[in-house]
């Protein structure tokens, strides 16, 4: 894979992750307001599983591409140290999406929603509680990361006169 193609693929993957994140974010904001056991809730949950899985897949691809084609500081006025700070937060954002996806798969698996071997009872309440908690932890983690990335972007704008609305690298 040549460098130019790698950079383009990285950029495309970032946009896909951004779109998927927005969809999942609105889905997870709306779902708790719909009563459980209702048909709408089931539809929203299935949609969440599909979109969340896609987010996991594309975030994994983005991290893979990051290793071979890491984003570069293209803004001359932004010091390297300040760039590294944003860079780490953005990298951790993708890691948190992956961790969120994996904990989500285990939550659904321990809830009996997904099965890898048909007819196998995978329901385990203790696992469900622990992975459900972790799923929630990673959701809060990426929301905090996004907040801090935005905060640093504003700080960089004020201090170094560097404008960038790029959150997802």
């Amino acid at each position, binding site marked *: 894979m040549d460098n130019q193609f790698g950079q383009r693929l990285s950029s495309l993957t970032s946009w896909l992750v951004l779109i998927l994140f927005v969809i999942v974010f609105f889905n997870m904001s709306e779902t*708790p*307001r719909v*009563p*459980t*056991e*209702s048909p709408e809730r089931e539809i929203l949950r299935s949609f969440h599983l599909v979109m969340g899985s896609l987010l996991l897949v594309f975030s994994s691809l983005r991290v893979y591409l*990051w*290793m*071979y084609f*890491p984003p570069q500081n293209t803004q001359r006025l932004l010091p390297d*140290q300040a760039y*590294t*700070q944003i*860079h*780490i*937060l953005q990298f*951790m954002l993708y890691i948190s999406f992956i961790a969120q996806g994996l904990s989500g798969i285990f939550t659904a698996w321990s809830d009996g929603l997904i099965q890898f071997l048909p007819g196998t009872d995978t*329901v385990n*309440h*203790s696992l469900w*509680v*622990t992975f*459900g*908690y*972790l799923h*929630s*932890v*990673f959701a*809060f*983690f990426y929301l*905090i*990361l996004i907040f*801090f990335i935005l905060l640093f972007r504003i700080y960089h704008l004020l201090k170094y006169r560097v404008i960038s609305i790029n959150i997802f690298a």
Partner: protein
Amino acid sequence: MRNYFINARATHWLLVVILFAIACYLPYLIFGAFPFSTTVNLPEDKIENLVKDLDLPNYYDLYSDQATAEDKLLEKQAFDSWEGGKCRFCHSLREDDRARMAPSLYRILGKPAAVGENFTYSKSLIEMRNNGLIWTPETIDAFISDPENYIPANRMRVEGIKDPETRQLIINYLIRESQ
């Protein structure tokens, strides 16, 4: 990639660790969630001992036979909806349901507090159980009207239901669904 990790400043990673630590605490702080469940909170014979000397009525006979389909719909909405009690978002109400975010409320009336399986109760609720708190229509009404005030430091992180009619509908629903 390797150079990137080596060159990254320790303080940058420290910030990430601090943010992750905050994220670990937030589900507990905001939702009252707990990272593990306790398999059995109290043996069945001890639960029976807590209520055996009390002369409790059969609360499930109290439900009005006159309830119309409209009444039943209102009760369900009060229990389910975001505008009502929001109870359904954490509690289940069927015999065969597992406890979810919060304990199942199936046949909750007449039971001592904090005796459900698979749920890690707050110390304050366990203390209330040891002090003799039994769930009756009156105690449930008092609790859901202002949870934090009725049992300080409990883990049900919702605002109280100020409307007495909504609270009554919820209690009716608990009775009807457990009959």
